């Protein structure tokens, strides 16, 4: 089970700060999140970067998840 942690803004729509989701990869994770939290704007979520176990990934489409991965959704960081 991956542990998904939501930001303050996301918590307004999920009602929870974190949850455990059975998913082997990013796409399965998104599908499960969409089912469990229908108020979340999935289009917005798909535009975000994610951090898997502390590693920030801007394009996570093909990412796989480990058994106890911790996942955060983050805004895209560009820098100067």
């Amino acid at each position, binding site marked *: 089970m991956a542990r998904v*942690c939501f*930001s*303050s*803004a*996301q918590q*307004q*729509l999920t009602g929870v700060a974190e949850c455990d989701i059975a998913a082997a990869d990013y796409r399965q994770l998104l599908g499960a999140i969409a089912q469990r939290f229908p*108020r979340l*704007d999935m289009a917005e979520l798909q*535009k975000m970067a994610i*951090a898997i*176990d*502390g*590693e*920030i*990934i*801007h*394009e996570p489409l093909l990412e796989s998840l480990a058994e106890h991965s*911790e996942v*955060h*959704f*983050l*805004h*895209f*960081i*560009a*820098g*100067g």
Partner: protein
Amino acid sequence: MSEAQNFKYIGRNTIRPDGFDKVTGRANYGADLTLPGMLWGKILRSPHAHANIKRLDTSKAEALAGVHAVATFADFSAVGDEAIEGGEGSSTLLDLARNILARDKVLYHGHAVVAIAAKTAAIAEQALALVEIDYEILTPVLDVRTAMAADAPLLHNDLYTQNGADKATTPSNVAARHEFKMGDVAAGFAAAEIIVEREFYTPTAHQGYIEPHACTVRFDKDGQSMVWCSTQGHFDVRASTARLLGMELGKLKVIASEIGGGFGGKTTVYLEPVALILSRKSGRPVKMVMNRDEVFKATGPGSASRSWIKLGAKKDGTITAMQGSLAYEAGAFKGSPVMMGCMTAFTPYAVPNMLIEGFDVVVNKAKVAAYRAPGAPQAEFAVEMLVNELALKLGRDPIDLRLQNAAKEGTQTIYGPKLKRVGLVECLEAARDSKHYQQALAANQGRGVAAGFWFNVGGQSSVTINMNPDGTGTIVEGSPDIGGSRASMQMMAAEALGIAPALLKPIIGDTENVAFSAGTGGSRTTFATGMAVIEAAEDVVRQMKQRAASMWNVTAEQVDWVDGVAVNTAGEDRLSLASICAGADRTGGQISGRGNINARGAGPSFAVHVCDVAVDQETGKVDIVRYTAVQDAGKAIHPAYVEGQFQGGAVQGIGWALNEEYVYGASGLLENAGFLDYRIPVASDLPMIDAIIVEVPNNFHPYGVRGVGESGIIPPLAAVGYAVENAIGAAVTDLPLSPPRVLQLVQDRG
């Protein structure tokens, strides 16, 4: 990467491959391209900070002999309101178009309204004077406090505050409110035995790049248009320009010229789409070059900010709670980096209870752009000033207090993930142990310490390495070189190939001869493009081994690659890279390696700076007497360049702290749009900036690289600010600490 790699070339200060061109004047910058039949484009800019355009008549200008084309916002009429994906300054295509040429309103002094292309620059200027515009002048909104007031004049009637998942129903100058929290901040303050809090202000500051924005373009009816420009990301220029003009990407080639500084300010477009419109209309190439006045008035500086920060700690120095509220100016359109301010402000600290909110606020100033670690310097100024105050009140050494509370591997950040391995503790220890920190202060001197954090990013990079028959090669990369990255690419390729760096020539490909690469920003190039270079070099090595294997009738797996030589492990055979290249025509053709990646695993970089100042208490003049910049580079590929990045960031931050600010009159007109009145530090203002490179490897990069381009600008604001506070014994809240402000603080202190 392993902890102890033995490098042959990495870590040496090799001769920079672009040096000769630059010192001899042979390098071609944004304004250096001239094409046959070329026209000159000039822009008419708003004389007002906030006004409705009631009437716009360009007919007299169009009738002037020598005028070939006129452009206004009407030329963007097909542009929709879709989002531009990007980072902290992300916006919409419509806002981008409205910033490039005003639609129905001018929103800042210098806002572009009309562009004209003419046979000569003088005729274009003459034509601009013939444009008739009737303005209805509106009250300007020049700072966040005014802009956030309930009765503030509105810049946009269709801007509604986005607050998390909620959107307001009445328009406002506040585009967004962000919030990040963890733990229980109320409980954290309840557990505190000492609390410090203060409000701070940082001014609008420009990146101060020496080369103005410039481009030469040619729109071809056959669909092969070209833009030559000074930019940090030519693929981004292509994407923005093509979308604004409704062009296919494949019909627009963008060539990045040599660049005379960017620091984040050349990550967007101002002139390029306008010049291409003028070229499309006139059927002639068009050149546009901003003057310094235009650069200051109409390109994106760093956000001004107002912030409030509160810290609580126990008497033993344990920080129990951190709270803050940040309000950043976005300029005329939404998209300040306040979210990054929220995400970075408290990250140097391992504190369980944190809460911070940020407001993105539009004002009648030029739309802000990225500026080195966008959003972080403003927030960290406030936090680090208070950490120093906390140390004073606790009777603690400021570095010792930071070490006690320092973020390290596993520390939970307020923005979500736990930190991987980072080097803040090592930076603090290096600063503490530096000769500088051991020196005593003289009379009228003060010392400040500050830390800073930046994420660094990865992203897409593409590289090809084309080998030549004589064993030399060309590295074609897609990342404009704004800080010496060609040398680093050359060294990383040389390390992977096992040949001398001088045998490899690194060049920046245009958008047609190298695959997509994200712009040079976010401290990503040495990390991400470096990984692409290594991948391309390893691809070359694979092919070299295959060619050698085919000559020796063995498998490629039986061939080792040692210092640029193929070694037959099943025999005594040896073939050098040069020999394989020389015979490549007979073994399958010339060898070319590719590295096309979307790099992940960027390693954050922490910085710690120590600053000593001397304050003339009769004039308020501040002199920097000693300055040390410590930063974690992961692995310094080219140490001299890394030191240069540390020093450059420090100097820009010192300028922000001491003198740099946009000065506006009551009517919102910018009064210091030039380097005579906008005072950046020059070499004679400063001592040598001592640079200490800390190397805590980033395990996600083959050679351990972290980015170094941005963290260095974060600590100086508080390092200088607190040094002045320490010297004069009066609380510093507002920057810049120019002589009049410091003198006032001294006089108010009594």
